[in-house]
């Protein structure tokens, strides 16, 4: 094998970098250790059990159970059992928005896909959207309206009491407050207005968990209106983000990931891509994807923005302002921005008005307004008013609020002043919650009027100006819930309210112009979205930059101790869906931890902590005047020294069995600075408790040999050269002539296969994959993949068919301790989705003693569960480590009832895909290339007596990917997208249907090519937009 010409080293975790003995032991044991042998049983016991087992089996076999088949009484005309129906709908969770298509079987939603007709989300989804289908079947949901302390009520009873009380308040002129997160639905807002008409003392307060109130205020100052504009990353050639994780949590990640990926696509014809600078404290997903990443402290965000302004102002001939701090890459970023004026974009995550005013000024200098920022299309994602919410909490404590309605929000948990609110609520006469679960806030309410889950309800949304979206129910309400809007209207004195009619009438009055109304309405419902033209407007910047700079200088001063920042991670996010085990078991995109809450620290601050294999210690974090928080430490390469990062969304106490008692609530750490919530705080101290802890992470699981043959990357500078070739192209010597070297694919011991019909293949672009993990959740839901819980993940027995390997890389020498430190200080990151490679010469197939894993005539590596006897030879022989063994029966097993409700509760089981077998104990499983979707696509074509069209068969991972990094299709079809992308040609024109295909795309490679297993998955080399390979 040729020696690799790059010096870069790749590593999954610090233990691998330092070659920790524990890690080496596990990495060398190719297979995860099995359950401990129970030596308590003798051979006699075994024989007894065996004898009983055989007898039991033969007895059980004598009489098969009688199974019932129960058809509909009155079958709906447009639905046939066993045929899936699809409904366009809308996902909203506070201000988070996604246009979706819901797949239902026999009236049960079982899968959510993106809606391609929406110009906002363009068919993309996120992990949280994909997982939300399981939240519908959450066992912690309320079954009926609740009155007082746990008393079951009918809706009539509840309405009577509530209306009585509200009328009483109205007569005495008491204040009523409706508290909610951002409301995207115009019809809901209209309903609240109607409620206000009836009860004129009502005030509506919106707040957001991840607030952007600072931006609203900054834009009000800069442009005269308190709005947040649309951002269009796809037009940006240079992106500078100061602590805005726009790929995970900032504003509208589903929208931004797709736009961002557009700028990251490269090909032989398009050898250019955006350049992305990130300045941040913790390693965020956006930071991990950046070309240049600079570590700053949270308190320096303002200063970095000021510095950037000054650098650009000097070029533009504007007046500079005081303050600023120089950081690596800042001058370079300013140069690049200046050179791409009109195609540049600067965003900041800060919720401080002053910082955002300076950012607006920078974008004004760069001419971003009208190109990468569209102020004529304001977005409604974040309407929360931090000041109003804080005032509300004060009013509650002062006893001046008589009634409060919490509309689908949980401020007791997810607002910084939650504890204050909780204690003050006793002074409020009437407390109502419309939450569909008894969450922390609803638990304190006098009345709970449970709303539907969004998949059961009619609704509408206006994510952006003139971009409307409809939500239609995909299932009849499972429990005795009622649309909150109907509750509001009923309490406002209306009778026989039907929120569906309300929406329909609103749309008729607001948007419908001419023609047959029913046809128009049906079309809207079918599309799920309605998009009306928006006129062009221009804005002129009128902000006071100098005042902003002095406010920044006054508000952020370097203090003593650690700086703590809190953030939404890519799994449970803000915690509203924390009780969803799909999200709890989704490895965090960066840390790869599951079911865990932790504090991230820089390696430099973690000296003395032996952080191998995620074995760690508890630390307490004390901040002045706050109760100390005790959390285990996770050492995070790339984090700024002197900072501590704590994810939000944990520490739930009333979410349900899944989420309760995982970690601590980090919301109370958020404080008001300069009139809005500030997500970082200084002056923290950090002490070890000496208590050891094991964090469950998938970080170094399924590790394989050398890295250079797995991850391939280059710089844009190199890629732009005309004769660019991949740096690592293995060659093998043949016995005939040792000097003659050939590509490993040219040699084979096997006769090969002939794929006369289809030859399924997949291409994964490492350049556009951002590592978010939506595909992992989509795969779980589509394929009934078991969730195993924290303990089993620690035992390395997670069942995910698709994992995202996160590699850190650096080019420092790691021969000594100092080298290790440099390597881990600020590494580059690569994400690589890894799934069954469907090898044509599959090593697993040859070692199976019972032929349970075989090759199909269409190139699939098939796994036949009912044939498998569980030798695990295949997993041992798999070079990619993508096979998963069912160590336990994960279904109908009390042990896994919490972690895996989809297979253990009657309610949860409704989410299972009826076309995919639920696997039992003792069998192997792995990615099937969504064979059920392939078979369904083929059958559809056959029924219509036509050939299969490209794009008809879409795997679940591909469908969920908002960046389009995954392309699946028939490589036998020269017209398919994958064939064109990879430039596929048969290796032997005489045998065009053979397994051997040549790829003409120079970026295409196969992982571990040199072992000659000939996978059906190609990866496209990652390209970094750097001037040289070295950072």
């Amino acid at each position, binding site marked *: 094998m040729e020696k690799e010409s790059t010096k870069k080293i790749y590593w999954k975790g610090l233990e691998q970098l330092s070659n920790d003995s524990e890690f080496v032991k596990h990495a060398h044991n190719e297979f995860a250790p099995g359950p401990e042998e129970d030596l308590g049983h003798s051979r006699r016991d075994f024989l007894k059990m065996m004898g009983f087992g055989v007898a039991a089996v033969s007895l059980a*076999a004598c009489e*098969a159970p*009688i*199974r*019932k*088949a*129960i*058809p*509909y*009484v*009155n*079958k709906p005309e447009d639905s*046939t*059992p*066993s*045929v899936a129906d699809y409904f366009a709908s809308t996902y909203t969770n506070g201000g988070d928005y996604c246009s979706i298509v819901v797949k239902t079987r026999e009236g049960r939603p079982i899968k959510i896909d993106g809606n391609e007709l929406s110009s906002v989300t363009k068919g993309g989804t996120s992990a949280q959207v994909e997982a939300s289908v399981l939240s519908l079947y959450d066992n912690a949901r309320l079954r009926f309206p609740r009155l007082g302390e746990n008393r079951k009520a009918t809706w009539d009873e509840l309405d009577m009491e509530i209306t009585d009380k509200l009328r009483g308040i109205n007569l005495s002129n008491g204040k009523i407050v409706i508290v909610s997160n951002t409301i995207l639905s115009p019809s809901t807002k209209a309903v609240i207005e109607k409620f206000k008409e009836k009860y004129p003392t009502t005030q509506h307060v919106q707040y957001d968990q991840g607030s952007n109130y600072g931006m609203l205020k900054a834009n009000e100052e800069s442009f005269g209106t308190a709005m947040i504009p649309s951002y269009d990353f796809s037009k940006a050639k240079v992106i500078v983000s100061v602590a805005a994780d726009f790929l995970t949590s900032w504003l509208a990640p589903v929208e931004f990931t797709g736009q961002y990926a557009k700028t990251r696509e490269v090909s032989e014809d398009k050898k250019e891509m955006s350049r992305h600078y990130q300045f941040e404290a913790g390693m965020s997903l956006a930071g991990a994807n950046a070309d240049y990443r600079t570590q700053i402290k949270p308190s320096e965000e303002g200063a970095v923005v000021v510095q950037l302004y000054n650098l650009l102002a000097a070029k533009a001939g504007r007046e500079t302002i005081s303050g600023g701090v120089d950081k690596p890459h800042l001058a370079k970023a300013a140069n690049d921005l200046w050179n791409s004026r009109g195609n540049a974009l600067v965003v900041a995550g800060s919720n401080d008005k002053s910082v955002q005013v300076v950012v607006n000024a920078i974008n004004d200098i760069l001419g971003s307004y009208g190109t990468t920022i569209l102020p004529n299309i304001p977005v409604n994602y974040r309407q929360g008013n931090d000041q109003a919410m804080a005032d509300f909490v004060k009013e509650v404590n002062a006893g001046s609020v008589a009634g409060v309605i919490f509309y689908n929000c949980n401020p007791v948990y997810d607002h910084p002043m939650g504890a204050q609110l909780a204690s003050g609520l006793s002074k409020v006469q009437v407390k109502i919650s419309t939450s569909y679960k008894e969450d922390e806030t609803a638990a304190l309410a006098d009345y709970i009027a449970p709303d539907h889950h969004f998949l059961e309800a009619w609704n509408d949304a206006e994510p952006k100006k003139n971009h409307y979206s409809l939500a239609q129910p995909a299932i009849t309400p499972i429990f005795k819930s009622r649309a909150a809007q109907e509750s509001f209207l009923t309490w406002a004195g209306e009778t026989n309210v039907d929120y569906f009619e309300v929406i329909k009438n609103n749309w008729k009055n607001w948007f419908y112009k001419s023609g047959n109304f029913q046809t128009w309405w049906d079309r809207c419902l079918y599309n799920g979205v309605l998009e009306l033209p928006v006129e062009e407007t221009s804005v002129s910047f009128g902000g006071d930059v100098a005042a902003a700079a002095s406010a920044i200088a006054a508000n952020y001063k370097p203090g003593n101790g650690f700086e703590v920042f809190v953030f939404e991670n890519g799994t449970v996010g803000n915690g509203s869906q924390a009780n969803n085990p799909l999200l709890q078991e989704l490895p965090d995109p960066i840390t790869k931890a599951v079911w865990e809450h932790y504090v991230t620290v820089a390696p430099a601050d973690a000296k003395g902590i032996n952080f191998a294999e995620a074995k760690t210690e508890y630390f307490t974090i004390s901040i002045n005047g706050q109760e100390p928080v005790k959390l285990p430490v996770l050492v995070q390469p790339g984090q700024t020294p002197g900072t501590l990062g704590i994810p939000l969304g944990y520490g739930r106490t009333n979410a349900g069995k899944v989420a309760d008692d995982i970690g601590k609530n980090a919301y109370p750490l958020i404080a008001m600075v300069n009139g809005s919530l500030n997500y970082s705080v200084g002056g923290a101290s950090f002490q070890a408790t000496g208590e050891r802890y094991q964090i469950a992470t998938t970080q170094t699981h399924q590790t394989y040999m050398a890295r250079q043959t797995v991850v391939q990357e280059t710089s844009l500078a190199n890629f732009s050269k005309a004769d660019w070739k991949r740096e690592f192209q293995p060659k093998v010597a043949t016995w005939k002539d040792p000097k003659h070297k050939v590509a490993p694919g040219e040699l084979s011991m096997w006769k090969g296969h002939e794929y*006369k*019909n289809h030859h399924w293949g997949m291409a994964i672009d490492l350049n556009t994959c951002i590592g978010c993990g939506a595909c992992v959740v989509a795969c779980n839901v589509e394929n009934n993949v078991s969730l195993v819980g924290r303990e089993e993940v620690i035992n390395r027995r997670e069942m995910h068919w698709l994992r995202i390997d996160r590699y850190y890389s650096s080019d420092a020498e790691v021969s000594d301790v100092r080298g290790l430190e440099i390597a881990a200080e600020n590494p580059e990151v690569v994400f690589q989705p890894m799934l069954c490679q469907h090898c044509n010469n599959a090593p697993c197939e040859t070692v199976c003693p019972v032929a349970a894993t*075989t090759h*199909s*005539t*269409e190139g*699939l590596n*098939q*796994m*036949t*569960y*009912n*044939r498998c006897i569980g030798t695990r030879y295949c997993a041992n022989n798999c070079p990619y480590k993508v096979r998963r063994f069912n160590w336990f029966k994960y279904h109908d097993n009390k042990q896994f009832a919490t972690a895996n409700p989809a297979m253990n509760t009657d309610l949860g089981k409704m989410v299972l895909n009826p*076309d*995919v*077998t*639920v696997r039992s104990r003792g069998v192997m499983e792995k990615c*099937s290339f969504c*064979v*059920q979707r392939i*078979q369904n696509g*083929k*059958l559809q*074509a*056959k*029924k219509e*007596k*036509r*050939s*299969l069209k490209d794009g008809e068969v879409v795997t679940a991972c591909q469908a969920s990917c908002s960046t389009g990094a995954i392309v699946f299709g028939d490589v036998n079809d020269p017209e398919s997208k994958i064939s064109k992308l990879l430039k596929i040609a048969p290796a032997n024109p005489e045998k065009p*249907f053979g397994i051997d295909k040549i790829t003409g795309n120079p970026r295409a490679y196969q992982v571990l090519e040199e072992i000659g297993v000939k996978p059906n998955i190609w990866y496209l080399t990652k390209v970094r937009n750097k001037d040289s390979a070295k950072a």
Partner: protein
Amino acid sequence: MIKVSLYSITRSITTFVLFFTLSVSFAQEIPETPEAIADGESLFNANCKTCHRVHQKLVGPALANVYDRAPSIDWLKAFIKNSAAVIASGDDYAVNIYNEYNKTQMTAFTGLKDDQLMNLLAYIKAETEKGPPVAATTTAAGGEGTGSGVPAAYLNIILVGMLVILTLLVIVLLFLVSALKRFLDQKDLSEEDKEVINSPYTVGSITASAGFRFIMIFIIASLGFKWTINTLFSVGVQQGYAPKQPIAFSHKLHAGAYEIDCKYCHVGAMVGKNATIPSVNICMNCHRSVKTESAQIQKLWAAADWQPETLTFGPNQKPIEWVRIHNLPDLAYFNHAQHVNVGNIECQTCHGPIEEMEVVKQYSLLTMGWCIDCHRKTDVNTKGNEYYDKLVELHNQANKEPMKVEDIGGLDCAKCHY
């Protein structure tokens, strides 16, 4: 002004009348093309056959000559589309039929287009002209056991022949033994040898011999082994399973005597994985008026909570819990649409002579071997299906045999197991 408008009105009326008569006279031509008749036949089978025959009175009148008998073709169209409206309009002819057939309401076929109705009439006309069928000759659902190999009759002859040969062989051997004995008797032999020769064959001596014991043990062990294997293979196989159903529904009557198309009730067979057991509303299409006094039909009415006054389903519906007969294990995926729609396989191929079954039983083994066997033997139904074009072309390059399911991956594990 008035004149002009009057003129325009009269003109438009004349045009309208002209157009109307033209279109009517055009429409009244019953087409006679084979395509129209074929289309009519399939429409008839799918929609009408449940209640009507051409030459025989069933639930509704025999349809022979209906196009001449009825007041007009347009009347027929209106009646088929919505008979209730025609009856309600007080039309004499319609009211008479309604009363004659015990006030049985005909299902409304609003979905049928005019040209489809004409095709339907074309079929009825063609059948009318053919005249009633002469005593139907029942052909056996032939071809049983006609696979490859020797016909059964020959097998019997061979067996008898072999038996005769074996008997002859035994006789010859007996002759040989007695001849040898006689020969030895004439010789001078020692006492001991003579004793051996003259010792008689007793049952005891035979059963005591080692050879006999070995053979017996071998036979018993083999039979036992075979029995065990057979038993194990039949675990979970429910061939012949014919449980009692909550309603004594007879396929013999519906599918046999009335020749109702299977897919009229089992609507899923053409589109989905499940053929689907018919929902009560399908039964009620006919049984709202047919044989309503029967206790079995009353069960249907109870399930639907049928309101005969309003002809609607009531609020207290209760689904019927049929006993499932064909139980594939969860690990096996089977799709009816693939076999019935794409493969054009007759229902009887797997479900047996369902039209003769009073109580349905599981006819086939439904084991994996049974599936595989059929996939090996069956030709792919590629005719007119563009999906298979490339495959057929490639197959014919190398083979003269027709393309079997096996040849296009019909034995792949992931065709049924995923």
